């Protein structure tokens, strides 16, 4: 479903260049749960951004389903993004909207009706265990709660894939496990999940595919893999 073909990304700055990822070949199938691990600066976020179309590859091709991601024009990107749910370390909720409105926003941009919104949003918030904090603004929620709102928002459009870039990076162990359990549950219900992390414990405990990235290259790719430190 997701294919990286000979993908290289070089960030060009005024005085120098950074090779973030180099000659990446990956194939991620439907309903897979993939962990992407590696040190900070290895190139994990760059791979994610290439998939969401935030960055364009310097070389190679990224495709998602029938979309050729690096060929999409800015006005075509929104349609790709409605098929993806994205989750970040820093949550990226809209600060002026409460939990309900943040989740509803993803439905609004997709042009769903008010009735659908009133029906689906409470369901999604209930699934992440936040039904009673619907009216809270992000500043009135803990880190774990914010991330659960972000997960509800990511799922609400029934995306083909959930992309989580270090979703537990700012969370304590208890919340980390809560988030991980949610992601596993989403995956069980049939959605592909791509998770980047450098948390060894969670990767080693779930027995799913692990892709290890180092210095912009894939150095290991194993079904039921482990996080092996080099």
């Amino acid at each position, binding site marked *: 479903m997701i294919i990286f073909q000979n993908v290289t990304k070089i960030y060009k700055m005024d005085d120098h260049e950074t090779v973030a990822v180099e000659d990446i070949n990956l194939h991620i199938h439907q309903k897979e749960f993939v962990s992407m691990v590696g040190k900070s600066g290895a190139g994990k976020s760059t791979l994610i951004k290439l998939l969401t179309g935030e960055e364009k590859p310097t070389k190679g091709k990224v495709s998602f389903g029938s979309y050729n991601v690096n060929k999409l024009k800015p*006005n075509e990107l*929104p349609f790709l*993004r409605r098929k993806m749910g994205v989750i970040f370390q820093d949550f990226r909720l809209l600060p002026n909207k409460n939990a309900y409105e943040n989740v509803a926003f993803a439905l609004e*941009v997709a*042009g769903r009706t008010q009735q659908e919104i009133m029906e689906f949003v409470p369901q999604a918030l209930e699934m992440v265990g936040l039904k009673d904090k619907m009216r809270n603004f992000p500043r009135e929620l803990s880190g774990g709660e914010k991330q659960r709102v972000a997960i509800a928002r990511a799922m609400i459009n029934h995306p083909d894939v959930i992309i989580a870039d270090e979703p537990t990076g700012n969370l304590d162990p208890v919340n980390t496990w809560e988030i991980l359990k949610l992601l596993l549950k989403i995956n069980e219900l049939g959605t592909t999940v791509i998770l980047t992390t450098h948390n060894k414990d969670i990767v080693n405990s779930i027995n799913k595919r692990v892709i290890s990235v180092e210095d912009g290259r894939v150095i290991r790719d194993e079904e039921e893999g482990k996080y092996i430190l080099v």
Partner: protein
Amino acid sequence: MLTTLSRVIKYGLVGFWRNGWLSTATIAIVFLVLVGFGGLIMFNSLANIVLTDIQDKIDISVYFKTEAPEDRMLEVQRSLESLPEVKSVEYISRDKALETFREQHKDDETVSQALEAIDVNPLAASLNIKARELKDYEAIAGYLEKDTFREITDKVSYTQNVGVIDRLKKIKSTVEQGGLLLIVFISLIAALIIFNTIRLAIYSNREELSVMRLVGASNFFIRGPYMVQGVVYGLIGSIMSAVVVTLGVLYSSPYVKIFVPDVNGWAYYLSNLFGFVAMQVIFGVGLGVVSSYIAVRKYLRI
């Protein structure tokens, strides 16, 4: 589509309200620009009315010799009326001239006594000619120089007006050119200022814009609310400006009347009110919408 449109409008209004300070500042700028713009247009049209009014008062008078027979004089009138340059020719007989003169000096004892004393009508009959265009007076004056006319005419009063006509021509074209230039200049400055203000508003929201893009908001969904805000800026600014300009015309028209008694600025303004307000609104809203449209562009690429 309709739900999206109503959401875009809703978010535009919410954003307008939330950016209270910036909204106020932008409206103030739109308002100032439009007042300047409106004032200039008012000045320009007023100058034009005054000029037309003065132009209307310019004419050529031909005074006949006192012994000239009336049918010859009417013949001259007819031949003048047949000229394409001539707008109107009015014949003022000796009796009529005397009557007008009496009327004008009825409070003046010495004048009426003098008229009683001489007992004959000392005034000449005349033709009062108005041309269609300022430039036609020269041609008409030339026409009157013909020998057949010279036999019965005494003098042509055109020469005394030549200076006035020339000056008038110059003032008119200066006002028109200068006004146009100033309007273009003000519009440019206005567009720049509003563009910058809206860009500032968008800059302070740039994180939100990138989140919106990531959850799949279309360009229209992101740009729309800012354009709605631009419309609101333009609407409020132009309505305020229309009110101020209206008050300005209302209070200044008595002073204009002192200088040019025949011009009623207020009445003229009222008869053009709709067009003027429409122009202000279109200009203000257009300015707001175009500025917003361009300002958001940069944030739609990711």
